[in-house]
């Protein structure tokens, strides 16, 4: 008999998922081989904007092992247009987006033709035999230029580079005052322009798709975050009946938003397999991934803060340009709009206006990347709070505290109309300050400044919150998103008392199997090891909205709770029948129904067996102890925290290094501290990488010059510090577990903490901004000249230096 007394939720359980992953017993999509399977390779445009004048594939078709060459013209009638599920305005402009270009290409990397062959090597060899004539067109690369009158157009047919403009105004919404009035009446006005550089999600597992057309259903394996959305979108895009498509996301090696997509490759692999009647596999190379998988961020942000001399913020105005790249992908237009609700952050801002213009350029399309809209907002407001503190000569923590929502003011409805259910910014900040030794480091900073140390110390702060757990369906509806935000779960009690949990949320590294097992173990009183979590296959897990936006636990996890509650309710009726008492007389704890006031009890496992036998069930009770639940959250979840970063800046070389990084995050109730800590660590690494290392760079012709991991600088272990992480726990009041999302928090919070710290070290030299990534060359140049902008030295791929440890040349040599 297995039962748990000590609650599973909160335990630092080691992960169930690990056993396969640490032994190489994995099922990545690229591992799949099927009888007769063919391999596909993709010819991609070297030009960022061109008309396709001719394609000659005759020689390629005659090459050894080549079964077919398919061009966009060959499938023009059946490929449809890649879906965009988020038309943010009714008049949003969106160019047709074929999976394989038909008559023109709009970014370098767009597919022009595919070769299907016996082996991957033969398919790749044949690519070189395809003769393509392209007539180059003017390229649009710069957003400020793109919105001017009479400029070149990324899509001449559209007549404009502007896709849509989305506005929120608190005066008009009635949630606050008029921001222009606040600015005109302000004692202090601070205006800044920030740049969110273009990033690449950089999941470690390259994308891969296998389509098997030989069964009654088409089966697609894909390295995707969203098998359920993918199935629906394939059906809607290709007019193939939904019930004839099965999608499987087997082991998926990271996503970070980068696999929240319906990709051209998924569509044309499907079409190739259908055409040829044979299984077809496509697996990308890393260069192909960096070039053609969607990118993230890429905004120009103009902010105006109005305040009183005492530091009280009276208004905030935000104007964004957001680069969509060449096409609108699945949720591209909505990503910057998610930020609209977060610029006001943890602060009580009486007047607010947000305006975002989405712009087309001839670059790789952008879409979700870890945080999606919220890191951009958090960066800008946290940078602005520092700028305001400098303007008023106040301590940056003091100015934040003056404006933030006090813990006794929750629930609090913000100027952007969200209601924050709970939070305690004071507690998190106090804890972080103590761990960080804030006062001690400030003293050291002053002392180093005093003696003109060549290595200066800077302290950066980020007191963040974010909205996650996407999302209440009615809110998504009001934002014109194409679907709801519910999640599904079902539970099957097997005759032996073991449990199968079917999760609609599909993991790609998070640890759902472990966390869901902990939740179910508590809810049903069964053993952690007696729970099996099934997911990622539309056949076994038919309903779901998948994994993104830190939604799995706060939406999917709650669906699991709701399904478990239904199992217990059903079991209660049967237990009462078995023990000949009223259901109301039963208490359920530790997996047992006990007749109140007696020692008479029945275990849920015994009930499961009795239900299976079905010999003696109460009238009208079905012989099953299964249940399902679809849960639609009533609100977002609002994790928050205080991140403090101390940076050392070598003023002679521009080299920066993290001296100390402390974060205290409040993600509500914690189901598994290991998993939470891991999510924070990984999030911090990505946020710090934006601040210091990563940038997708295009040259003047629109060619991506950071198309390998030698140029796009994902940080290595030697580039990152150890983090000091801690927590406060203010439970969410809008779900029964009290949990909040954690997947994106670290990324959202850390970028401004790092940049604020770099600037804090070098403001004394007249530096007011350094655009990200703060590479040694940029920092050095800023110190020498006061120049802040990207461009000039340090703008080339790899930031000019890369992740070489300048202090240790022998290590650099050993980096291979």
């Amino acid at each position: 008999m297995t039962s748990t007394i000590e609650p599973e939720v909160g335990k630092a359980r080691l992960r169930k998922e690990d056993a396969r992953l640490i032994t190489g017993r994995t099922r990545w999509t690229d591992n799949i081989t099927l009888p007769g399977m063919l391999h596909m390779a993709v010819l991609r445009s070297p030009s960022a904007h061109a008309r396709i004048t001719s394609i000659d594939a005759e020689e390629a078709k005659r090459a050894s092992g080549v079964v077919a060459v398919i061009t966009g013209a060959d499938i023009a009638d059946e490929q449809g247009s890649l879906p965009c599920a988020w038309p943010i305005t009714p008049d949003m402009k969106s160019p047709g987006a074929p999976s394989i270009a038909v008559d023109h290409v709009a970014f370098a990397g767009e597919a022009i033709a595919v070769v299907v062959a016996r082996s991957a090597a033969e398919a790749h060899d044949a690519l070189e035999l395809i003769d393509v004539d392209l007539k180059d067109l003017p390229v649009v690369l710069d957003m400020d230029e793109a919105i001017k009158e009479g400029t070149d157009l990324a899509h001449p047919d559209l007549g404009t580079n502007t896709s849509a403009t989305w506005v929120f105004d608190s005066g008009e919404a009635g949630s606050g005052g008029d921001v222009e009035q606040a600015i005109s009446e302000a004692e202090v006005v601070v205006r800044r322009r920030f740049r969110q550089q273009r990033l690449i999600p950089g999941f470690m597992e390259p994308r891969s798709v296998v389509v098997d057309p030989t069964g009654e259903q088409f089966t697609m394996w894909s390295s995707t975050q969203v098998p359920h959305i993918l199935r629906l979108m394939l059906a809607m895009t290709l007019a193939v009946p939904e019930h004839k498509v099965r999608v499987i996301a087997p082991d998926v090696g990271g996503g970070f938003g980068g696999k929240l997509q319906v990709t051209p490759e998924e569509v044309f692999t499907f079409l190739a397999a259908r055409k040829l009647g044979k299984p077809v596999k496509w697996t990308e190379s890393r260069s192909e991934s960096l070039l053609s998988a969607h990118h993230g961020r890429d905004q120009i942000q103009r902010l105006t803060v109005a305040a009183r001399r005492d530091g009280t913020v009276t208004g905030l105005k935000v104007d964004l340009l957001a680069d969509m790249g060449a096409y609108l992908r699945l949720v591209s237009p909505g990503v910057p709009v998610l930020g609209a609700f977060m610029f006001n952050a943890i602060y009580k801002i009486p007047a607010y206006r947000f305006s975002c213009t989405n712009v087309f350029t001839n670059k790789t399309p952008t879409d979700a990347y870890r945080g999606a809209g919220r890191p951009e907002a958090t960066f800008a407001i946290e940078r602005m709070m520092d700028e305001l503190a400098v303007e008023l000569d106040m301590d940056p923590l003091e100015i934040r505290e003056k404006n933030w929502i006090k813990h006794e003011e929750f629930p609090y409805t913000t100027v952007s109309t969200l209601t924050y259910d709970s939070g305690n910014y004071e507690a998190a900040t106090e804890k972080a300050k103590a761990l960080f030794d804030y006062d001690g480091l400030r003293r050291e900073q002053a002392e180093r400044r005093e003696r003109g140390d060549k290595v200066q110390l800077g302290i950066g702060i980020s007191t963040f919150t974010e909205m996650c757990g996407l999302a209440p369906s009615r809110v998504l509806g009001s934002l014109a998103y194409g679907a709801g935000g519910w999640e599904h779960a079902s539970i099957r009690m097997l005759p032996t008392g073991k449990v199968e949990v079917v999760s609609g949320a599909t993991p790609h590294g998070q640890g759902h199997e472990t966390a869901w097992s902990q939740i179910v173990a508590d809810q049903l009183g069964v053993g952690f090891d007696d729970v099996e979590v099934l997911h990622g296959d539309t056949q076994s897990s038919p309903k779901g909205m998948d994994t993104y936006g830190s939604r799995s636990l706060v939406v999917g996890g709650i669906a699991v709770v709701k399904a478990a509650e239904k199992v217990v309710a059903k079991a209660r009726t049967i237990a009462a029948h078995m023990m000949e008492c009223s259901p109301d007389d039963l208490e359920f704890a530790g997996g047992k129904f006990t007749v109140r006031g007696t020692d008479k009890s029945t275990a849920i496992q015994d009930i499961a067996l009795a239900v299976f036998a079905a010999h003696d069930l109460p009238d009208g009770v079905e012989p099953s102890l299964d249940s399902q639940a679809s849960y639609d959250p009533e609100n977002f979840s609002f994790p928050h925290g205080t991140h403090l970063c101390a940076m050392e800046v070598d003023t002679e070389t521009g080299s920066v290094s993290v001296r100390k990084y402390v974060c205290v995050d409040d993600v509500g109730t914690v189901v598994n501290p290991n998993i939470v800590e891991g999510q924070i660590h990984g999030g911090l690494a990505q946020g710090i990488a934006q601040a210091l290392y990563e940038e997708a760079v295009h040259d003047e012709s629109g060619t991506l010059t950071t198309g390998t991991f030698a140029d796009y600088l994902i940080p290595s272990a030697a580039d990152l510090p150890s983090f000091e992480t801690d927590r406060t726990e203010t439970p969410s009041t809008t779900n029964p577990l009290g949990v909040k999302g954690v997947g994106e928090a670290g990324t959202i919070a850390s970028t401004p903490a790092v940049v604020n710290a770099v600037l804090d070290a070098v403001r004394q030299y007249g530096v007011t901004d350094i655009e990200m990534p703060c590479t040694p060359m940029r920092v050095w140049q800023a110190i020498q000249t006061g120049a802040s902008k990207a461009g000039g030295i340090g703008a080339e791929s790899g930031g000019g230096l890369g992740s070489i440890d300048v202090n240790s040349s022998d290590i650099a040599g050993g980096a291979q």
Partner: protein
Amino acid sequence: MRITVTVDGTSYTDDVEPRTLLVHYLRERLGKVGTVVGCDTSNCGACTVHLDGQSVKSCSVLAVQADGAEVGTIEGLARDGQLHPIQQAFHDNHALQCGFCTPGMIMQSLDLLAENPDPDEKAVREGIEGNLCRCTGYQNIVRAVQDAAHHMRPGAGPEAERVSGTDTAGAPRTADIAGGGE
């Protein structure tokens, strides 16, 4: 070209194209799909295996270069159902999330521990610098490698890994070490 390679204790003789990379030979010919490909410029290290006991990025080695050699992959580390202490340490320290970098990270960590049986944090970070992870921020990987070091004394290395041939001294030693990993 005809090559004979011993992989995880099993000998294979095959005809391969001269251009075939070791990693493609392992994955496509031998079905050793535990070893993965993460990039095409030898930056990420996901494909790291051992060649005669030393770590190599198997995307940077031709299959023909492995002729006559012993190759060790992630799939050959556990013995008799017992995890290798480095595998156990990755599990115990939550040193993986999506797990795609894990095979390479583990094989590289073993190589590091062969050279330095008791590395400090800096030595671990520098020793795994050629292996990229996008999920963990590396902190728990560093912890895991140091934890494994404590359970693996007197260390790793070619001797400890040898499984083929008449010299089986390494195998029981490894098993003993694995037992000590609990």
